[in-house]
């Protein structure tokens, strides 16, 4: 199709005007640009501020996440520290137990306390060793500071220890200082009482109480506890002494059983 004369004329006019504008555009262009930039600058400023804020927020989000992770790590490490403290305490106890085990002239088996008498009347513990480990009835049970009790019921993999604080427990004992004899009996309140102490005996608070070794159950000279109070029951021909056990028997976690 051939172009019309009028179209050609229009095209020439547009090209001429554009050419003129291009040739003389410097001032026009500058003004236009300045005005345009002026016009757009608030928008740019807003966008820039927004962008800056976004840039500021993005690290915060990252920081928050980092903070969360670090907090979790702190919690984890704190738990580890707590676990290590428990392990360290256990390690110290076991070291003491091992040293004590080497020092006693008996063959012993270490055992862990896994349960206790649930009543307020009796005082016995359950340990995790039994006949399979060579335990036998009526064998003494010790810990590092002194006598704990004796084995009374032996299962294959567990055993029950009658503590010296149980009302059914009776142990022949001596006051170490004056070799005065007596019978140590347990009480439901968790303490012990030495009875049948001669009236003329000078037993006093602070005296150490040791096993007498009279019977066949407990060896001689094992530490039992310390006298805290001495008294005389009315109508009786002997004194008694209240004894604090060498070990805190309510907090035992491991024991040594003599084979």
């Amino acid at each position, binding site marked *: 199709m051939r172009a019309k004369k009028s179209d050609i004329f229009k095209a020439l006019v547009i090209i001429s005007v554009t050419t003129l504008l291009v040739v003389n555009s410097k001032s026009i262009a500058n003004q236009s640009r300045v005005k345009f930039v002026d016009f757009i600058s608030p928008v740019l400023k807003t966008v820039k501020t927004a962008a800056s804020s976004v840039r500021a927020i993005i690290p915060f989000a990252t920081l928050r996440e980092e903070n969360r992770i670090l907090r979790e790590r702190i919690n984890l490490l704190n738990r580890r520290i707590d676990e290590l403290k428990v392990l360290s305490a256990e390690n110290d106890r076991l070291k003491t137990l091992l040293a004590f085990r080497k020092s006693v002239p008996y063959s012993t088996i270490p055992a862990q306390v896994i*349960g*206790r*008498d*649930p*009543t*307020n*009347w*009796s005082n*016995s513990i*359950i340990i995790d060793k039994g006949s399979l480990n060579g335990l036998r009835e009526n064998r003494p049970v010790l810990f590092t500071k002194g006598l704990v009790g004796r084995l*009374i*019921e032996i299962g294959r993999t567990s055993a*029950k220890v*009658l503590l010296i604080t*149980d*009302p*059914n427990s009776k142990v022949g004992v001596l006051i170490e200082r004056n070799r005065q004899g007596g019978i140590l*009996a*347990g*009480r*439901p*309140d*968790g*303490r012990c*009482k030495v*009875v049948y102490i001669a009236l003329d005996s000078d037993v006093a608070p602070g005296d150490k109480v040791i096993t007498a070794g009279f019977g066949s159950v407990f060896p001689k000279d094992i530490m039992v506890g310390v006298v805290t109070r001495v008294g005389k*029951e009315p109508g009786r021909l002997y004194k008694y002494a209240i004894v604090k056990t060498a070990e805190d028997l*309510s*907090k035992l976690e491991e024991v040594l059983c003599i084979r």
Partner: protein
Amino acid sequence: MYKINRFQIYLIILAVLVLQAGILNSIKIFGAKPDLVLISVIFFALFFGSGAGLESGLIAGFLQDLFAFDFFFANTLTLGLTGFIAGLISNNFFKDSSRAEFLAVVFFTIWSMSLHYIFIWLFSKPLSISYPEFFISAVIPAGLYTGLVSIPLHKIFINIYNLKEADDYL
């Protein structure tokens, strides 16, 4: 009267007994530890009647006898009787009151420990502690301690059971 599943009673008593045998020794005060088993038996007796009290008491006592080293059935008898008597007063008892629960538990702790002392005194070896001394040094601390622990435990039990009429009958 509320109703309860018998199996739940046994399960709770067993759980409480294991808890008591396992860890409660570490929170002894004046040689006494809270008797959760007794609290449970009293709770069952007060809310579900003397039958439930007797039954839960006998079961709990029998389980305690398996742990203990007294003459067998001392705990069975003591807890069975305690549960039964607690059940008898349940109709005249304001069950939702913590104070009433505290007083009931203190009373029944004193009652059951005294009963235990009498049983041991009658049927077992001679005791190295007189009753007044036993009462002051063991019964009173245990009674108060158990009573105090019973207040939150009572609320926990009430929430567990949501004490409404249930489908199962004891």
